[in-house]
């Protein structure tokens, strides 16, 4: 719309008259009386007074629309917090995810350090071993019977109690075994070596005399002491 090429030229007389008419128009638009007798001032007044106003119906309809627009807009005007609600939720979600990821990463690093970061001196010499010892811990569970006096019945609830005992653990230096070729050991049976044989008993073991005797043991003679 802008006519940037303002190569407008006017003669000095035309420019002076144009400026004079411009001042007349300014007075005309302000509702002031015209001072000059230029015929163009009369034309300007006629142009100014052309019937170019909206009809009362159009004005009334416009006012109703404006009321409807801005009353609805006022109701729908979101607060600053609501306007940026989704942005805030997204930001908080991002921060939360980042914190969780960071915590998991740190936890992974602390609990499972990389192999290269193992320091044998920091490894414990002993590792607790867990043995399961079932113990029964009675728990009191009151049950209500038909009588008015509650009775307590003990229901044994088996629980597992973990007892840690220390068991020697080889040090980390022992765990890390260099991948060096090992000498191969060929196991050859030597003739001198006793061959493990499994021999089945041909005869059942001989029972002892006590076991073999079916008769009850004879009572030993009790020699009564003689007076002689």
């Amino acid at each position, binding site marked *: *719309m802008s006519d940037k090429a303002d190569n*407008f030229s006017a003669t000095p007389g035309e420019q002076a008259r144009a400026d004079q008419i411009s001042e007349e128009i300014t007075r005309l638009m302000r509702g002031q009386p015209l001072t000059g007798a230029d015929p163009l001032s009369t034309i*300007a007044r006629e142009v100014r007074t052309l019937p170019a106003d909206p009809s*009362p119906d159009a004005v009334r309809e416009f006012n109703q629309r404006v009321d409807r627009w801005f009353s609805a807009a006022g109701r729908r005007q979101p607060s600053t917090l609501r306007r940026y609600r989704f942005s805030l939720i997204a930001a908080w979600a991002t921060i939360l995810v980042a914190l969780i990821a960071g915590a998991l990463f740190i936890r992974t690093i602390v609990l499972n350090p990389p192999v290269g970061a193992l320091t044998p001196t920091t490894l414990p010499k002993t590792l607790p071993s867990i043995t399961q010892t079932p113990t029964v811990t009675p728990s009191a569970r009151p049950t209500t019977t038909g009588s008015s006096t509650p009775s307590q019945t003990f229901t044994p609830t088996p629980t597992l109690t973990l007892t840690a005992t220390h068991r020697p653990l080889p040090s980390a230096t022992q765990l890390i075994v260099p991948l060096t070729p090992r000498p191969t050991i060929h196991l050859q049976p030597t003739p001198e070596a006793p061959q493990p044989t499994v021999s089945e008993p041909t005869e059942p073991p001989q029972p002892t005399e006590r076991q073999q005797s079916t008769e009850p043991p004879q009572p030993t003679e009790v020699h009564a002491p003689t007076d002689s």
Partner: protein
Amino acid sequence: MSATQIDFAQLFRDHYHSVYRYVRYRVDEDSVAEDLTSEIFERAFRAHTTFNPQRAAFSTWIGQIAHNHVTNYLVSRSRRQAHEFVLSETERLVSTEPTPEAQLVNREAVQRLWGCLKLLSDRDREIIALRFGADIGNKGIAEQLGLKERSVGVIIFRALERLRGCQEREQERI
């Protein structure tokens, strides 16, 4: 002052008449002017949150919207080359309630003057509409159209001369 603190409803009401007059000076029918004015304010309502009072006055802002909308209408109308039935000025004056100022003007003179306005170029007619319809000063028109202020005065002066010549020819023809 931000856009949320402005009473746009009041601004719309304050500028309705000037916008309508600007549109009416650029088009030939009241009904078209009313429709276009409604559309202009509808566009302004949709974009009112983007209005920045530090950058431009509301009259400039709404004037820009009106200028673009009317120009688009005139361009599309000329492209369609549709035949428009233009109410005679007599019918138009009967159908509208004349303002007190309009009652002072002879009806025949009004008809001639509207007819002569149609003969102006688009640029001259727009500047006449901005000056007499929207009541924008030469400086504001110059800023809006990218012209020098004194050039606007000369354009208005020459347009008025053409209108006077047109009126004289019409009187001689009658």
